[in-house]
C-alpha cells in the first residue's frame, strides 16, 4: 500500500504536468511543469517527503534506462546523420565544453565573491 500511494502521487502530478503542457502554448514538457508542481507541493507541505521518497528514488535510479529508446531512434535517420556527421559532432563537442566551462566558472565566481565579502 505504501508504494501504491507514492506511485499515485507521482503519476497524479505527472498528469497535472501534462495538463499544463496541453493548455499552455509553450514548448515546455510535462516533466518540467511536474517538477515545479512537485517542488511547490513539497514546500507547501501538501506532499510530505515520506509520501514520495522511496518510489522517487527508484524512478531516479532507473532514469538511465529511460534515455535508451529515444536515443536508439537515431538508427532511423542514418542517411541524414552520415551526411553532416563530422562538422555536426565537432560543433556539438566544442559547444558543450564551452557551455560547461562558462557556467561553472561564472557560478563559482559569483559564489566566492559573495562569501568573500562576508568574511571582510
Amino acid at each position: 500500500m505504501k508504494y501504491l500511494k507514492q506511485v499515485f502521487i507521482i503519476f497524479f502530478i505527472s498528469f497535472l504536468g501534462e495538463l499544463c503542457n496541453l493548455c499552455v502554448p509553450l514548448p515546455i514538457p510535462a516533466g518540467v511543469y511536474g517538477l515545479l508542481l512537485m517542488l511547490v507541493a513539497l514546500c507547501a507541505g501538501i506532499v510530505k517527503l515520506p509520501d514520495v521518497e522511496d518510489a522517487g528514488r527508484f524512478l531516479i535510479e532507473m532514469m538511465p534506462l529511460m534515455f535508451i529508446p529515444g536515443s536508439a531512434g537515431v538508427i532511423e535517420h542514418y542517411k541524414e546523420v552520415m551526411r553532416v556527421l563530422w562538422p555536426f559532432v565537432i560543433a556539438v563537442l566544442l559547444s558543450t565544453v564551452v557551455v560547461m566551462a562558462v557556467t561553472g566558472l561564472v557560478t563559482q565566481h559569483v559564489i566566492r565573491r559573495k562569501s568573500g565579502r562576508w568574511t571582510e
Partner: protein
Amino acid sequence: MDGIISGSLFFGLALTFGAYLIGSALHKKVKTPLLNPLITTNVLVIAFLAVSGVSYDTYNLGAKYIGDLLTPATVCLAIPLYRQLHLLKRNARAICCGIAAGVAANVLSIFAVSALAGFEHHVYTTLLPKSITAAIGMKLSEEMGGVAALTMLATVITGAFGYLTAAPLLRLLRVTDPVAKGIAIGTSSHAFGTLKAFEMGEAEGAMSSLAIAAAGLVTVAAVPLAALLL
C-alpha cells in the same frame, strides 16, 4: 526476423533491460568512463537492431513505455532539489548568473561554429537547443525550422559527452564548489549529464536537476532571437 515479432510488446523491453545488464556488468569489469553503461547499452541496442534486421518501430513498440517514464522521473527530481533547497536560496544570484551565462555561451558558440563551418540555416537551428532536455529541444527546433530527429541526436551526443567530460573538465578549471559543478553540468548537458552530477553527490545532482528546468526555460526565450542571427 522482423515479421514474427513485429507485434511483440516485450521484445523491446527485454532488449533494453538485457542490454543494460550487459552494459553494467562490463562497466564493473573494465573501469573506464568510456564503457559507461548508458553508452554501451545504446551501442548494443543499435547494433542488435542493425544486425538482426528488426525495425526500430518493432523495438519501440514496447521500449517506448520505459521512455515514457521519463516524465514521472523528471517530476521526482524535485525530491532531491527540495532536500537541497537551502543551497538554492543561499546561492540564488550565482545560480541565475551562471545559467544565463551558460545559455548565452551555448547560443554564441553554436553561432560561431555554424558561421565558420558554413552550416545552412536549418542545421544551425537544429543545433541551437542541443544543451537542453530533448523534450523541450525537439519542439523548439521544429518551430525554428530545424530537424527534430537531428536535434535529438545532437542532444544525445551532448549528454554523453557532458557525462564523460564533466569530472576531468571541472577539475582542470578548478571548479570545486558543489553548487557550481551541478549548475554547470545541468546547463550544458541536461538530464544525461545530471546522472554524473548525482554520482558526484546529492548537492551536485539537485543543482543539476534545477539547471535542467531553468536552462530549458531560459533557452525557450533565447533561441527564437538567436535563430535570427544566421
